[in-house]
């Protein structure tokens, strides 16, 4: 049986009384030891120098009404018992110095006496487990009650101990998870587990998140949902700011992220706050973070660690407190290995890493996502949309077959559903429409595979960031230019071949120069082409 130990302030208002008539009043500290259903084995009573007499009188009275109770007086002098900082510090020190032994003693912190500030401090210290106990609040006798004992209630701040509260938390967690999934009843167990973890982390942690996964897996969507969940739970008040790092280049990258001051460089006609400052108090989602240049990486690292950074052209640092969610479809540890990504930044981002699987590895989730897309279409278009039975079976069979690549994942599925719905004006998707759509998807994925071939050639010369800034139109052209250059023995020969028609009409026929300029537009030159 554990010893019951109560800790509390002597009440310099409520516990007072010198005359015999003090017994006619409710004195919380005395009443604490008179509860018929609570035996206090030890009372640690805190008082200051002014209340020595009162403390000894109260402890004498307690011994009389409750011989089982041993009263231990603790002297604690506060300059101002209403000064939060002072009281908290004093009680924190008291708790630190107190040798708690929760295995053999059960602690109750009496919050009935002492200032409201003391009450708040006790609450905070107990909630933070600096005081490993529960709170006790005494209540005076009710009107019509005889006696001065009153009653007490014990408050355990460990919320998991309360069934009704715990079930609310469970429900809230389920709602949160469902919210993160946009209400889609996903069936993939691994995905659902991941969402449950994200729900837990999202509402508890302000540390950066890293979402990895292939393009179209829903990183951006999930980042926004995480933000909205945090906002609904009042974890953030600021905005959601989203940026694709692949679109940031050169000086503009620094300025876009960290802002600049007026006159920082030519064209900087006004101050610009930058995305980090815009995200203050909110969430900054940096997609494709692997595309960030080395200078930006260094600044971002400092911005995460110290919440401070230097805007372009400024001589004073600016601050912003935001939660970072980073997205990437690259293997950042490989980038670290190649020296393209800072190891310390990755270490910072890597605390909470969640890998979003592609749609193909979540076959069982295709159907609920189809229903979700149909419903979304119905809501925006105001028209009910559904498959007929055969059409649905046909589409699902294809969607879940190995042939369906879903290379852009949910983006593909969403686009496909939009097409199906748009092409079914009577609100019913039939087999014929589905067959046509399947053909369209096949062509799409084949084309994308060809496009991937184009990109494979270009990747020999350009990094992902540079590549993502070039239109497909130019990429296709560039691949052919490179092919010709590789086959030619000199720059001039390649130029002659590439400009064989237009050179006939021109006065100056400097094809080599024209080609050189073209290549330079993409950061390439003849020598590099020849070297590869």
């Amino acid at each position, binding site marked *: *049986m554990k010893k019951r130990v109560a800790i509390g302030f002597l009440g310099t208002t409520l516990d007072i009384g010198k005359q*015999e*008539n003090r*017994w*006619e009043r409710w004195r919380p500290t*005395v009443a604490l*030891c*008179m*509860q*018929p*259903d*609570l*035996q206090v084995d030890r009372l640690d009573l805190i008082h200051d120098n002014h209340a020595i007499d009162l403390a000894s009188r109260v402890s004498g*009275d307690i011994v*009389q*009404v*409750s*011989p*089982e*109770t041993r009263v231990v007086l603790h002297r604690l002098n506060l300059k101002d018992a209403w000064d939060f900082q002072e009281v908290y510090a004093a009680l924190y020190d008291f708790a630190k110095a107190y040798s708690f032994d929760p295995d053999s003693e059960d602690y109750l912190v009496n919050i009935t006496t002492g200032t409201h500030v003391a009450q708040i401090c006790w609450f905070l210290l107990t909630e933070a487990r600096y005081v490993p106990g529960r709170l006790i609040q005494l209540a005076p006798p009710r009107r019509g009650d*005889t*006696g*001065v*004992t009153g009653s007490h209630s014990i408050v355990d701040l460990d919320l998991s101990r309360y069934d009704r509260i715990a079930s609310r938390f469970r429900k809230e967690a389920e709602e949160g998870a469902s919210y993160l999934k946009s209400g889609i009843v996903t069936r993939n167990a691994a995905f659902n587990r991941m969402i449950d973890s994200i729900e837990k982390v999202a509402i508890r942690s302000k540390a950066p998140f890293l979402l990895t996964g292939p393009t179209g897996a829903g990183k951006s969507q999930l980042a926004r949902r995480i933000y909205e969940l945090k906002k609904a739970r009042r974890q953030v008040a600021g905005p959601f700011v989203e940026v694709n790092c692949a679109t940031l280049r050169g000086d503009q990258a620094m300025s876009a992220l960290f802002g600049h001051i007026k006159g920082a460089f030519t064209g900087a006609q006004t101050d610009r706050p930058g995305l980090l400052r815009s995200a203050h108090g909110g969430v900054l989602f940096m997609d494709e973070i692997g595309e960030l240049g080395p200078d930006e990486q260094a600044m971002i690292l400092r911005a995460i660690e110290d919440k401070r950074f230097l805007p372009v052209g400024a001589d004073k640092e600016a601050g912003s407190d935001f939660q970072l969610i980073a997205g990437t479809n690259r293997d950042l540890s490989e980038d670290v290995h190649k020296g393209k990504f800072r190891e310390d930044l990755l270490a910072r981002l890597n605390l909470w890493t969640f890998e979003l699987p592609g749609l193909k590895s979540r076959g069982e989730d295709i159907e609920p996502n189809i229903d979700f897309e149909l419903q979304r279409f119905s809501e925006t278009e105001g028209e009910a949309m559904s498959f007929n039975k055969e059409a649905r079976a046909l589409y699902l069979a294809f969607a879940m077959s190995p042939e369906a690549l879903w290379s852009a994942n949910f983006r593909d599925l969403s686009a496909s559903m939009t097409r199906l719905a748009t092409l079914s004006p009577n609100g019913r998707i039939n087999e014929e429409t589905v067959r046509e759509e399947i053909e369209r998807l096949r062509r799409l994925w084949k084309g994308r595979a060809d496009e991937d071939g184009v990109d494979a050639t270009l990747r020999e010369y350009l990094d992902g960031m540079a590549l993502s800034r070039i239109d497909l139109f130019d990429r296709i052209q560039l691949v052919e230019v490179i092919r010709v250059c590789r086959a030619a023995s000199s720059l001039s020969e390649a130029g002659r071949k590439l400009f064989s028609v237009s050179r006939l009409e021109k006065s100056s026929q400097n094809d080599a120069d024209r080609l050189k300029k073209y290549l330079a537009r993409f950061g390439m030159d003849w020598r590099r082409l020849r070297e590869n």
Partner: protein
Amino acid sequence: MIIIDGSEGEGGGQVLRTALTLSMVTGKPFTIENIRARRSKPGLMRQHLACVKAAAAISGASHEGAVIGSGKLIFRPGALKAGNYRFDIGSAGSTTLVLQTIMLALAALDAPSTIVVTGGTHNMAAPCFDFLGESFLPIIRRMGFRIEAECLRRGFYPAGGGEIRMTIGPSEAHVSLVLDTAGRRLGQGAKAIVSHLPYDIARREAAAFADAMGWTAETCVAHSDAAAIGPGNVLTAHLECEHVTEIFTTFGRQGVSGDRIAQELAKEIKDHLSAGAPVGHYLADQLLLPMVLTKGGRFVTSRPSAHCSTNIEVIRSFLNTPIASTRLDDRRWMISVGEQG
């Protein structure tokens, strides 16, 4: 093992105390379950634990479940031991209830004992010392018990701090109790006592009570008790008859006038007198145990309370002594204990 259902009937505390006494005297262990199960605060309270601990101290008992809020208690008595005992019970307990639990057990021994109990002696939730000393003990002394008690200092709720000293000698030959009538009225009177409160309160109460009862002012006295710890006020009346003395008590309460207190007590006495039964409710409850433990007997009381019936049930789980309750008329019952009753 005797199993007692602590949720049955009235007075969970009384069930426990009766069982403790019987267990110690008979040597039979018992388990009490569902202790005070239907109360708003179920299970054992501090005042019950005080009785369990005192009983364990005099009988060398082992027990399980003697913690606050416990719904189940197992009590295995060892050998009773006469001696000098002291129990400090705060004001959450009651000195008279502890004495009531242990005195009959120590009285069963061949050697004398002394018990000193400190705490509350005058507490609304328990019989006050005057009942014990002036009503109950004189009757059981007639039955052969040698128990004397003295209130060395009154202890009013909430301060407590009173002290009672009880001496228990080996009993003489037991005699069965016969209490068919109260007999001739030998005396009557009342005492209004204040402690650390204005004397005037006691004076008014005494006067109002004399008035309400139509008793002479000389029989109703006021008294200020300076020795008692803490403030308190009690109005006690006694009806001393040939065969029984009954004690009636009311406590002064904040916000209730002395007149009201006097009226309450007067009503209680008039009700008792009009029933025409010599033994009141509370005394009836208390007499059962000394009777079943000795030669039995009979008494006439008003309609037995639920308390009394529950008490009889507990006694039956320990002893085979027949206990009969016979209705005599509208307001009087005869309780007889033992074969000869």
